Structures are given as structure tokens and as C-alpha cells.
């Protein structure tokens, strides 16, 4: 195990939000984890903690995760006061323990928003995002039978790139969690933009933006005040430009 001697291990204190179920009153609980490798991901560190808890016969900390490679958007943790922790352009599953130091105290909370109620511990219900998507985040072109070849509709490189960038959004909700107003406008802006930029999406653009914004308001998300926190914390680098575009789209749709 000569290699291991070069590895840095750390001992950490974790302050974690524990909450039995959606109705229970939660509280912060302190835990200690030892011999955490700097190469672990944050979720692997959580696995170590949970193994420890299970061995002691305690209830493991519930947290969401699925792909563990930054594409599903499930892992939602508010780490030391930032969504997905202190690193930039990563989800919690991509966050490395080398971002922390031996002896650190790490505060871990669920994403907080009235529209993201806590289900248990660090798991929140983000179905409000699903309902916004269902309100218009699709195109209703009939694709059975005599569909046109997609390549026969010319699309500028610029529009294609911007649509692709908007489509990078994985619906993780870090934008809402980071926003002081719990606004979902970066998410909705990205979803509106990815269609508004392409001819296939433009047919239903007006209804889409109206319905998606109406659903967003109904879910109780707050109002954007352009602090820009969402753009900085977004693991996929979704630009504020998408919010401006959504505003323009809604203005166009309302006149």
C-alpha cells in the first residue's frame, strides 16, 4: 500500500439536516467521519457516513442520487452555504473531497424553497419542475408517418449552439436553491429558450412561454431580481441570457 501513503486522508465534522418526513420538524445533527480520501466524491463520503450509521443501527441520511456523473440532476445538496458546494460547474456527485481540508466542518442542508418541500432529510420534492415542463416544455409535432427530414430546415450555427447550451439544463434546481428569492427563472428560461431558438419550437412559442410562466408562478417560486446567483451556481453554466430571452418571449406573446 505504498500508494496510500501519498493519499491525503481527512477527518471531518458534518452538520446535517435530519427530518423524519415531510411533516416532521427537522434539525441539524452533528456527525464525525474519519479517513475520508481526497479522491472521493462528496456522495461517496456520504456513503461512508451512512455505512457507519447503518452499522450502528441508526437511520442513514436520505439523499437523492442516480447517475453519479453529473447528468441526471438528482443530487441536491446545499453544502457550506452553496448549492452543489464550493466548486463551480459541478453537481454534488462530481464534487471532490479535495475541495475540503482535514478538520473542516461541513454544513449540509436540503435545497430550500417552498416549491421544493422536504420529503426526508436531504431529499426534496422537485415535481414542481415536472409540472412546469408539462405545461409546455415540449413540441407537439406529429412525428408518425410522413415527417419532414430535419436537415431540410436550415438552422444557423449560432441558434443551434444557443439552443444546445440551453438544453444542457438538467433540472437539478440549484438555481432555485441559490436564489435569494427562490426564483425558477433560470430553469424555465432555459426550457423556454431551447425551443424558442429553433424553428420546430417557434410554432408554439407564444403558448409555451405563457403556460410555463403561469405554472411557475402557480408553484410559488419567487421573482427574479437579477442577482445572478443562479448562473454562478448552475452546474451546467446556463446563462442569464436565457432569462432575458424568456422575458422577451413573454412580452412578445402578450402583445
Amino acid at each position, binding site marked *: 500500500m505504498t500508494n496510500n501513503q501519498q493519499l491525503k486522508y481527512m477527518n471531518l465534522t458534518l452538520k446535517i439536516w435530519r427530518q423524519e418526513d415531510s411533516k416532521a420538524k427537522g434539525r441539524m445533527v452533528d456527525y464525525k467521519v474519519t479517513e475520508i480520501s481526497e479522491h472521493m466524491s462528496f456522495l461517496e463520503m456520504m456513503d461512508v457516513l451512512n455505512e457507519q450509521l447503518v452499522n450502528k443501527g441508526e437511520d442513514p441520511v436520505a439523499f437523492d442520487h442516480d447517475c453519479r456523473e453529473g447528468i441526471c440532476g438528482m443530487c441536491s445538496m446545499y453544502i457550506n452555504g452553496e448549492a452543489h458546494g464550493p466548486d463551480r460547474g459541478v453537481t454534488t456527485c462530481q464534487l471532490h473531497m479535495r475541495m475540503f481540508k482535514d478538520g473542516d466542518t461541513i454544513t449540509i442542508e436540503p435545497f430550500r*424553497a417552498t416549491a421544493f418541500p422536504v420529503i426526508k432529510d436531504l431529499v426534496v420534492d422537485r415535481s414542481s419542475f415536472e409540472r412546469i415542463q408539462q405545461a409546455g416544455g415540449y413540441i407537439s409535432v406529429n412525428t408518425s408517418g410522413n415527417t419532414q427530414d430535419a436537415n431540410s430546415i436550415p438552422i444557423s450555427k449560432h441558434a443551434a449552439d444557443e439552443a444546445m447550451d440551453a438544453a444542457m439544463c438538467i433540472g437539478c434546481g440549484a438555481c432555485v436553491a441559490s436564489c*435569494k428569492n427562490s426564483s425558477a*427563472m433560470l430553469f424555465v428560461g432555459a426550457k423556454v429558450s431551447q425551443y424558442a431558438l429553433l424553428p420546430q419550437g417557434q410554432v408554439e412559442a407564444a403558448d409555451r412561454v405563457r403556460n410555463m410562466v403561469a405554472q411557475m408562478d402557480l408553484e410559488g417560486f419567487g421573482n*427574479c*431580481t*437579477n442577482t445572478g446567483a443562479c448562473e454562478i451556481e448552475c452546474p451546467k453554466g446556463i446563462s*442569464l441570457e436565457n432569462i432575458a*430571452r424568456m422575458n422577451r418571449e413573454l412580452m412578445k406573446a402578450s402583445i
Partner: protein
Amino acid sequence: MSGFFKSSIGRKVAMALSALFLMFFLLQHFAINILSVFSENAFNEVSHFMGTNFLIQFVLQPVLIFGVVFHFIMGFILEIRNNKARQISYVKNNGSANSTWMSRNMIYTGLVILAFIILHFIDFWFPEINTKYIQGDMSGVHEGVEGYRYFHELQEKFVSPIRVGAYVIAFIFLSLHLMHGFASAFQSMGGSTIRKKSLQSIGKAYSILIPLGFIFIALYHHFNH
């Protein structure tokens, strides 16, 4: 269209429109006030015109008052809604990691401005209304003062160091409010962030120079009378 202004984005746009209007007004107010530094006479003439012109007094002035009231009431409404959107706050929140202090404290900088506006009304506006519309004296002259009274009154106001201090503090807060607000208003209106660099430079210049100018005017009259 009415549905638009009920939506979150519509409210944002309305907020931005009122703010743009206020920023335009502030520029105009500054242009007149700075005259007082260069020419007593010019300041008096313009003040008399502004104070007695029907269009300004009975059309633009009510619009301005509506603009201010709309802006801060809408600011409060948005603040309340936004607080409701997160009922349980974070135990640890590192706001400075991703946003400026100015952007996170618009309601507090706004409240200081509101307090100032109230003081400003008691200081200048109520006496004006009293002289002109209650006592019915539209002459713009005052016993013992040569020419129009406006410049003289201005000088008298800025004798008190407490008042000058309050003005300086208020304008520092206005500067902080505008450092975020200026670019924010354009972004709310759907302004493209591609043009944001230049817009932000203009915003910085405006939000520093205009309040600094007002501070300069207050200090100038405090030390020169």
C-alpha cells in the same frame, strides 16, 4: 396585456419601467441642481419655471409621485412574495459566493432612500406647496431676498451639518441601490446580456457619478454661503 402584468415577469418589467423613469428623473433633477453651483441666477430662473409651469406642476409632478409610490410599493410586494417562496431559511448561506451585497439588499438600500424621500418632502416639497398653493404666493420672491427666493432657500437648508450628513448618507445608499439596479432594470426588460458589458459600465458611471454629484452640491453649499 393585463394578464402580463399579473405574471411574475410582468411585475418585474413594471418594476424596471418605474425604476427607469426614476433614473431619468434623477438625471434631470441633477442637471437643475448643479446649476446652483455655477449660477445663482440660472438656478433661480429654472426653479421658478419648474415650480410654476402648469404642465410640470399638474401633469409631470403627479406622474413622478405615482412613479415613486408605485416603485416602493411594488418593491415591498415583490419582497413579501419572495420571502414566501422560501419559508425555512438556510442555517448556512454563503451569499457573497455568488452575488453582490448590493443585489441582495435592494430592499434595505431602498428603505433608506424612502426615509430620505420623506425627509426631502418635509424639507422642500411641503414648504413649496404651502407657499404656492395654500398661501397662494406664486411670485417666487421673498421679503428681504434679492431676486427669486429659491437659491437663498437652498443655501439655508444646507447650513445644518446634520442635514448635510443625512443627505450624504442617503446618496451613498442610492449609489448602492443603483449599482445593482441600473443593469438589473435593463435585464428585466429583456435586455441582452451580450450588450451587458457596456451597459454595466454606463450603469457604474451613472450610479457613482450622479449620487456623488448630489453629495458635491450639498457640501458645496454647506461650505460656501
